[in-house]
């Protein structure tokens, strides 16, 4: 349990506490990059392959990227976004489908695969964030921008030498009254 959750649950409900918690805590107070990395590592190990590693070397994404994301709604509101280059998206789809991958992948196969990766990572991220919360269905396209560019926990790694980013980004501005 994070210090924020402990305070929220166990401290007396004074007006002071309520005023401070009306402004939702920063995402980095609830989850850190190492936790996101652990979730990503486990997801890649199980779904992509035991010999597939995410290497913690940040490199810029290519100009042409595609993102998939899931929304989390609850005490913390925001999105968990996976972003890769278009070529990497295709390679990830083949890696997920393994021998069942068709010779020519349809765009919907790539969207499906990328969305499912965001769903698995996002579902596990949701489990770390304050409950109760709801997980939305995966979406694919141009990622939603964070409400506050500073309110993002971002993991940047290389997979098969290609850059890949996972962002846990809050939608705090929408909630501040």
């Amino acid at each position, binding site marked *: 349990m994070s210090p924020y959750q402990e305070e929220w649950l166990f401290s007396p409900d004074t007006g002071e506490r309520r005023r401070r918690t009306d402004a939702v805590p920063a995402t980095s107070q609830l989850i850190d990059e190492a936790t996101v990395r652990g979730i990503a590592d*486990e*997801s890649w*190990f*199980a*779904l992509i392959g035991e010999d597939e590693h995410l290497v913690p070397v940040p490199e810029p994404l290519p100009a042409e990227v595609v993102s998939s994301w899931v929304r989390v709604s609850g005490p913390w509101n925001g999105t968990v976004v996976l972003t890769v280059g278009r070529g990497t998206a295709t390679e990830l*789809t083949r890696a*997920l*489908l*393994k021998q*069942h991958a068709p010779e020519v992948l349809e765009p919907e*196969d790539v969207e*499906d*695969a990328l*969305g*499912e990766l965001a*769903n*698995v990572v*996002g*579902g*596990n991220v*949701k*489990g770390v964030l304050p*409950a*109760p919360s709801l*997980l*939305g*269905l995966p979406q694919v396209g141009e990622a939603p921008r964070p409400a506050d560019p500073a309110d993002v926990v971002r993991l940047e790694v290389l997979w098969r030498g290609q850059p890949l980013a996972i962002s846990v980004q809050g939608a705090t501005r929408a909630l501040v009254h």
Partner: protein
Amino acid sequence: MKILVADDSRVMRQIVIRTLRQAGYDDHDIVEAEDGRDALDKVSSESPDLVLSDWNMPNMTGLECLQALRSAGSAVPFGFVTSEGSPEMREKAANAGALFLIAKPFNEDTFKDALDGVIA
């Protein structure tokens, strides 16, 4: 034995089917459903011996499908395969009559642990 695999992701249905085979359950008939509504219909039309269902799906969630099945008197063995494995989700699943909840990501050992005793 006939197993109904329900997930709105075709890719994930393939991964579930592949993991079933890797776990040693490779001589069973597999039927696929693309959401909870489709799964509900196929329990009637296909009479599976086991349902493996995602939770979060459009049209009808896996939980709504299970609740509809139990309300209609169906006792088909039902387990979830979902990206959310929190204690709250597990409690909800058990209360609705699910036998188990396999959290994604999973491997063949996770499947064996959940399915041994369910699949003969």
